């Protein structure tokens, strides 16, 4: 089987997308089983012990494609930086990609390829919780490989050898919801949700915080992921005099829902839309005017005035000029960066040993001095990390969205496991 090798210098996001869209098209079709879009990025030099193999399993096609592509680009960028600095203890990192195509059924087969054929030392990826649930077994149990999950999610993932580098409900809701209720005065909440595990558990946590702060959840509803008709939901929002919609509908249902909500005049009449995964990348999903006035709470925003962040963005923009996939927090890109850096730090701490037991033990006490949004610190024994959390509101300027950061909470505890 031929392997395509591209040197890191020549990689451009757009080329890669075109190259991958074919097979991933099949996988997104959902009716061709077992098709993979294996892709390899080889470093420029070799080491006696061989390269460190890192596998990325993310959604290059399908509804979650904008997030997946951002993840892949950030992974390449982070690895390139590390390799440019001499790799990890002199060993370069070799990067492999498999497209999970936003379909857990296909992802399982493709991830197995990473483990069995490429024999990677660590896998980073998965965006939706459905995807994580599907691929964690082939990676962690059957594959006996380390797995780092970079996206914000619903918590309660305490599997050994599975580290989470994205925000948890505690980190997101504890800041955002009191602000919505106390500062903005919104008391009547609606929870339109996609029907899978992340919204269900997140809503449970959010409900607790809402009620503890004096708010009221008027209705909580779940829809199939590809639902396109939301007239009943929008009707209930109107009739129930909802003033804050805590949205957990994800693509592909997200676009029709936002449009139908916007057209019903919800925001015009003072309602607030709040969604904890909305970031600057959402322009790839939803037109700007539907996001105006939206509230979110994430670990990083591009508007942050921090020299490390600015340098990070500049480097990313240099590597991927004019890319449509920005480096943002809601699409797991920040978690991916953190994940790669945590892995680097852990391998350095073990002195170059790659066995997952040792790396995991080292990662357990991992600390990052610098990262997007600020430093990050693994909580020992808890598989999750502390990070800065920011509440922001979305403003529209021209056709672009700009997030105005309203508050910052430093090194918030994930409160998991």
């Amino acid at each position: 089987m031929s392997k395509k090798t591209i040197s890191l210098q020549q990689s451009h996001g757009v080329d890669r997308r075109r190259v991958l869209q074919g097979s991933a098209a099949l996988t997104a079709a959902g009716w061709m089983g077992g098709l993979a879009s294996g892709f390899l990025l080889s470093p420029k030099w070799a080491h006696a012990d061989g390269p460190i193999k890192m596998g990325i399993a993310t959604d290059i096609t399908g509804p979650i494609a904008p997030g997946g592509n951002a993840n892949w680009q950030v992974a390449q960028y982070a690895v390139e930086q590390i390799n440019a600095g001499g790799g990890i203890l002199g060993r370069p990192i070799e990067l492999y990609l498999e497209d999970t195509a936003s379909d857990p059924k296909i992802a399982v087969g493709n991830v197995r390829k990473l483990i069995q054929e490429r024999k990677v030392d660590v896998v980073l990826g998965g965006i939706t919780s459905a995807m994580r649930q599907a691929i964690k077994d082939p990676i962690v149990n059957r594959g006996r490989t380390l797995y780092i999950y970079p996206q914000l999610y619903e918590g309660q993932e305490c599997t050994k050898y599975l580290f989470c580098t994205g925000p948890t409900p505690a980190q997101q809701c504890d800041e955002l919801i009191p602000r919505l209720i106390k500062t903005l005065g919104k008391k009547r909440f609606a929870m339109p949700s996609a029907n899978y595990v992340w919204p269900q558990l997140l809503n449970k946590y959010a409900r607790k915080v809402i009620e503890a702060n004096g708010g009221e959840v008027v209705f909580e509803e779940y829809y199939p992921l590809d639902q396109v008709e939301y007239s009943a939901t929008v009707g209930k929002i109107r009739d129930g005099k909802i003033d804050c919609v805590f949205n957990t509908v994800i693509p592909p249902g997200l676009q029709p829902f936002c449009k139908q909500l916007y057209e019903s005049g919800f925001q015009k009449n003072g309602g607030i839309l709040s969604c904890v995964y909305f970031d600057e990348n959402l322009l790839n999903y939803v037109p700007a005017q539907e996001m105006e006035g939206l509230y979110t709470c994430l670990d990083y925003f591009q508007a942050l005035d921090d020299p490390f962040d600015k340098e990070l963005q500049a480097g990313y923009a240099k590597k991927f000029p004019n890319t449509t996939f920005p480096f943002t927090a809601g699409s797991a890109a920040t978690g991916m960066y953190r994940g790669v850096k945590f892995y680097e730090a852990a391998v350095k701490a073990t002195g170059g040993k790659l066995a997952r037991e040792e790396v995991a033990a080292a990662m357990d006490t991992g600390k990052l001095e610098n990262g997007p949004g600020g430093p990050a610190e693994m909580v020992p024994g808890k598989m999750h990390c502390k990070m800065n959390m920011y509440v922001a509101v979305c403003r529209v300027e021209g056709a672009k969205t700009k997030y105005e950061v309203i508050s910052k909470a430093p090194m918030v505890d994930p409160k998991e496991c």
Partner: protein
Amino acid sequence: MSAQQSVADESSAKRSGLRRPLRMLPLIELAVLCVIVAAPFALNGRPDLITLFTNIIILSLLAISFDLCWGFSGILSFGQALFFGVPGYVIALVGRDLGISQIWLTIPLAMLTGLLLAFVVALFLLVGRRPTPIFVALGTLTGSYAAERLVSGWQYVGAGNGLSAVKLLQMGSYEFVEGIEFYSLACVILLAVYLGARALVRSQFGLVLAGIRQNEERLAFLGYRVQIFKMLVFSLAGMISGVAGALYSYHQGFIGPGNMGPGLSTQAVIYCLLGGPGTLIGPVIGTAVIELLTYVLADIESIRQFWPVFLGFVLLGIILFQPNGIVGVAVSIRERIGSYGLRRKGAGRQG
């Protein structure tokens, strides 16, 4: 006088079998058997290929079940994956909630689930005022689609996430992981199912099925209880699908709503059509060809983009010009029971 004699000579020569045609089907079956048995030895050291071959074996079971319905009996079941996915879920649930994954219990359980479910669906779709083929096709498609939507919303079975971390298949205290052992198990099961189905279709029962496929009304007039036969074959096909679903669940370690929906159902149709319906070995070959090509072409970018389109054209070509599929190229009409595909003569609707 001499002309008549020469004609008589000729016909007697024919009757004595001087031009006996070669029976291709058993040869093809033997060839496939050899490939299946030899594969693990050739592939030692490539675990990913063993996994691929195991998947092929499992999916060809599904294709065979479709062939029994369509290729032999003329029941176009566009929802065969329903009887694949539901038993797969049952297996995963039994493993998760009851902790049982012993092969002696779970495989028969899957067979029973497939059988019963197919029986219920057959009661609804095949029985009663004679249902048109369109109704059967659409009904099965709808059933498969509705089941997928229902399961996508049901929290207990994992909703859209599906069920992952399925408990490994056990025989006593031995656990089947992906690899040569699972491959061997799948092969044994395929062999058993194949021989059983083969015996079935070459029996009197099979002849009745062929008659139903050709002209249902005629057979009904001849006194056969057509509906009972159709229900029987449909239920048996469901049973075979059930085994396939259980094996898939154990092998992948994952089962999701997509495994019972129209996507997989139509995949089974394509496998069977490409390979050659009505031959039992055709679906196996069709599955192998499609899955192997897909895997191999995954790494060749220029072809990869066009592969599904190409496959669609191949499928269209098969339907238009070679309804007997790949196997039909080698196997003559005489070896198959009854004819198949588009009727060449007569155009336009019966007015």
